[in-house]
């Protein structure tokens, strides 16, 4: 342990103390963080150090990130039957996280955002204890399978933590490499049909795709896991093993693509519904190295011991 210094401010004591000086201080509070390389070796308490260099965003390889388009450059036309490349949410890194559920149907209580649950769907939804959305519970009381580092599965991979997404393809298949958890799935585009009988349920199901025009790949996926294994989203909406997920990858031009996802799950929902509508993705440079991101049980355990349980005021090992 190390010596600490003084307590500055206790809970909630700020409201009556706001001053013009403080507001000015707020206005000048930097919204952009430091450079990765600028202040990584600060020594404690030394206030005479030089100001760190300007912020630089680095990729997983430690290389400064550049835009795929040069300033003033316009995207070229979309290549035919090709969605390969490294894609990222076009509206910024936070756009694909979707903590409250699918971006266009978040669990926020707003009119129109409630999926058309069946009776079983609603019952299953209420049995889930998610960390986010209308049914959220305390950190250590959640029964979300992913809390134990179980795979997100599909279609949740489309509705939570959409980050840098590497897509590779040949004449037979399209392979999607997800940044979150370093998972991948194969979409067969060789003309085969979906299996008549599912050999065995898979976390990422069985997918086939076909080009409906030069720049649109329509993908159907079935054969996913039952609802106790995979949730639809972070808010605890259910997905059953009877689900048919339709993904529409539409490449607008060389640098931009939209993803639309429709859920058809007769066990959990009374009718099909669009969970994600034209979610925009932009092309990253081909040399971009994706940061490693995995769920690691030993780190998860330490997280709950150090932080999750004190935050919730409970013991997660006893409550689950």
């Amino acid at each position, binding site marked *: *342990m*190390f*010596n*600490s*210094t*003084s*307590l*500055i401010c206790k*809970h*909630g*004591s*700020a*409201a009556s*103390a706001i*001053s013009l*000086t*403080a*507001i000015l*201080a*707020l206005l000048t*509070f*930097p919204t*952009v*963080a*430091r450079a990765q390389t*600028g*202040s*990584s*070796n*600060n*020594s*404690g*308490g*030394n*206030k005479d150090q030089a*100001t*760190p260099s300007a*912020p630089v*965003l680095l990729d997983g390889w430690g290389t400064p990130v550049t835009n795929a388009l040069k300033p003033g450059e316009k995207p070229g036309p979309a290549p035919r039957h090709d969605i390969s490349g490294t894609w990222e949410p076009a509206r*910024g*890194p*936070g756009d694909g996280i979707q*903590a409250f559920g699918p971006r266009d149907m978040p669990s926020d209580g707003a009119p129109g955002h409630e999926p058309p649950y069946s009776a079983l769907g609603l019952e299953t939804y209420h049995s889930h204890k998610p*960390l986010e959305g209308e049914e*959220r519970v*305390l*950190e250590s009381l959640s029964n979300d399978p992913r809390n134990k580092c179980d795979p997100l599965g599909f279609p949740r991979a489309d509705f939570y933590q959409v*980050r840098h997404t590497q897509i590779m393809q040949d004449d037979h298949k399209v392979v999607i490499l997800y*940044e979150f958890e370093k998972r991948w799935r194969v979409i067969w585009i060789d003309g085969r049909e979906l299996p008549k009988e599912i050999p065995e349920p898979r976390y990422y199901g069985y997918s086939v795709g076909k080009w409906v025009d030069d720049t649109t790949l329509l993908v159907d996926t079935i054969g996913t896991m039952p609802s106790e294994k995979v949730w639809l989203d*972070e808010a605890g909406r259910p997905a059953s093993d009877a689900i048919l997920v339709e993904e529409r990858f539409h490449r607008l031009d060389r640098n931009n693509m939209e993803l639309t996802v429709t859920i058809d799950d007769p066990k959990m929902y009374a009718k099909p519904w669009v969970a994600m509508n034209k979610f925009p993705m932009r092309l990253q440079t081909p040399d971009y190295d994706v940061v490693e*991101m995995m769920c*690691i049980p030993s*780190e998860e355990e*330490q*997280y709950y011991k150090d*932080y*999750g349980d*004190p*935050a919730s*005021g409970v013991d997660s090992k006893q409550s689950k």
Partner: protein
Amino acid sequence: MKPKFLMICALAGSLIVSVPLFAHHGNAAFDVGKRVTVKGTVTDWVWANPHCWLKFDVKDDKGNVAHWVAETNNAPDMIERGWSKNTFKPGDEVTVTVEPVKSGNPVGRVVAVVLPNGQNLGMSYLRK
């Protein structure tokens, strides 16, 4: 009460409207919108899954030490914000603004920090 004290407390209160939701491990335990700013000494900076967390000690006027723990976000997200595994080391004196838990325990989510060299780190992405 010292002017610096007032200013920092006011700054903490003002931050209520300026920080986006960033954590994805639930809001239920937190006093959402509330801000607390403390100055302390780093004891550990855990760069890990699912979220990174900062441990630091805060001593009050009577010499009592509170062992704080505050989470940030996951490592890739923190990289997008300009943080790194080397942002802190034990012994660093830092000022930390957190969104605290409702229970009153010294636990919260990091909203912003001031490093020993005076640099501010926040939760805004470097690139939109």
